[in-house]
């Protein structure tokens, strides 16, 4: 296929995407992550990077849907890295150490019955991320920052 012209090809590019995530809306689960994934496919990142971003973004998105009232999933995409911010207004996390343990979950039963809330969310994100930061205030909300580097980018 033919390509469009780009007068600024030399300059390093970035795009910012932002998705609102509604707490408790399981019908929309994954919409933001899938949109982000398709965008990365169009950019042509290596499959392994896309998979890590997609999984991390999906877990972060699900965390907002399961636990929070509302939130935003934001992504900044550059040739070198993909950075994701997931910020929510919600209950916050009381014990981050526990939340980072595999299998630890505070999700209520009805959510577990839907197959979510297995206590793998944060550990999964950490496994996929090169940089993982979390900031939480009980009763206010949680902010997560995930950076995944594109290791194939050499220049």
């Amino acid at each position, binding site marked *: *296929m*033919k390509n*469009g012209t780009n007068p600024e090809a030399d300059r390093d*590019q970035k795009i910012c995407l932002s998705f609102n995530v509604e707490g408790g809306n399981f019908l929309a689960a*994954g919409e933001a992550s899938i949109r982000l994934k398709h965008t990365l496919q169009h*950019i042509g990142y290596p499959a392994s990077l896309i998979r890590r971003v997609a999984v991390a973004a999906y877990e972060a998105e699900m965390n907002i849907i399961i636990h929070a009232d509302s939130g935003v999933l934001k992504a900044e*995409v550059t040739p070198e890295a993909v950075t994701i911010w997931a910020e929510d207004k919600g209950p916050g996390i009381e014990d981050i150490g526990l939340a980072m343990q595999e299998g630890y979950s505070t999700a209520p039963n009805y959510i577990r019955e839907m197959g979510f809330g297995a206590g793998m969310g944060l550990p999964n994100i950490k496994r996929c991320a090169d940089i993982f930061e979390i900031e939480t205030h009980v009763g206010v909300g949680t902010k997560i920052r995930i950076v995944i580097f594109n290791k194939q980018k050499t220049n």
Partner: protein
Amino acid sequence: MEKYCSIFLDETRCTGCTNCIKRCPTEAIRVREGKAKIFPELCINCSECVRICPNRAPVPQADSKEILSNYRYKIALPDPAIFAQFKTKYTPHQILAAIAAVGFDGVYEVARAADEVSVAIREFIADHKGEGPWISSSCPAVVHLIQLRFPTLTEQILPILSPVEIAARRAKEEAALQANIPRQEIGCFYLTPCPAQVAAIRSPYFLEKSNVDGALAISSLYSELRVKLAKLEKQEESPVKATSLGLAWGRIGGQTKAVQADNFLTLDGVFNLLELLEEIELDRFNNNVDFLECQNCQGGCVGGIFTAENPFVARVTLRRMTNKLPAKFEPGHEEKIRQYYREGFYNAEKKVEPYCIMSLDQDISKAIYMVEQSEKILKHLPGLDCGACGSPTCRTLAEDIVRGLASETDCMFILREKVQSLAEQMLSLALKVPPVTVVQRQIMKTQQEVLELAKRIPPPLARREPKKED
């Protein structure tokens, strides 16, 4: 290797309606100059356009019977789905005899090879426990869909050759030995239920070159087979050598049954596949499922576009037929297959690589710039996904514009807005009367009417707010 597309678009039949572009699961079709165009590199040969087109413009391709004459010894490789195409009064043994009578020197059932492949898959999954889910690889449309849309899942495609490839190998071995004919004079022809298999034979994904020499559509032999079956003497039959499990590969769930997977999921229909593969790519099933049987067509291969019988009826026919056949191998046969598996007989010769065709540009910076541009363009498009521009959705139109394949004015709403603003400009110019002229009331009125007309909004856009510039 060049990717082969086995759907040909007959422009004389195409009216340029937008049914196919809206239906295509990989967005591989555009309407340009009043005719649909298929991008072969994006087409997975799923046949959805063939199913939806009211004018039968997309024509699925297969070989014609004439290619048989290129070979001295001709072997038919009938797909299990073929057994479900006839009335239940015919036994599978009779159907095999009829296939031979159509012009073949020998028949080797693909179901027999499916029996072998089932064991190989079972062994492979046992050897790679916990690395799943392993995605069945015998449906070429599924493999192409994954290569195109789910590049991260290519490593989970079962690297085991499909039954038809194994059937061709076995048939040639057998014929060379029994009939004492040099291999190059033996031709193996797949009687295929779908064009995706035709494409997989011409550009194989697991092999450098296919063992199969041609593929004939089941539908192209159908009437001939029916005539032969009706004329067949009662005692005339050729015994089926496959088990009922091999034959069950023709319908959805059959493969799973034959493989005897513990944790499995069966899935048919390309749109269901899109949805589920999306979730698998997000890691939702990894811990639960070992084997995923994926079939592009509803009902499995009996739902292929080259079949004659209704797929739901065919499923029942096939189930009834298989119930009458033995489900077990002869003693010792399974051990022999395991031996072959250990020797690598069923292994794929090359890896299935993802297609990078989705990306807008090879250079990542440039691609990011183009994505940014397309997002900007998208904000100006009406978001109705009407297809009147020839692209399936507003999003694809935006991508086509940055790829240089379309222009913004292909959107009839954008075009209309441009015409409107142009009309307004013209009018305001026309209203500018030279100071030396006396203004005539009548002219003013006509101009006012034109202005009103230009401002009128078409019904679909009645409630649309004018887009603001960013």
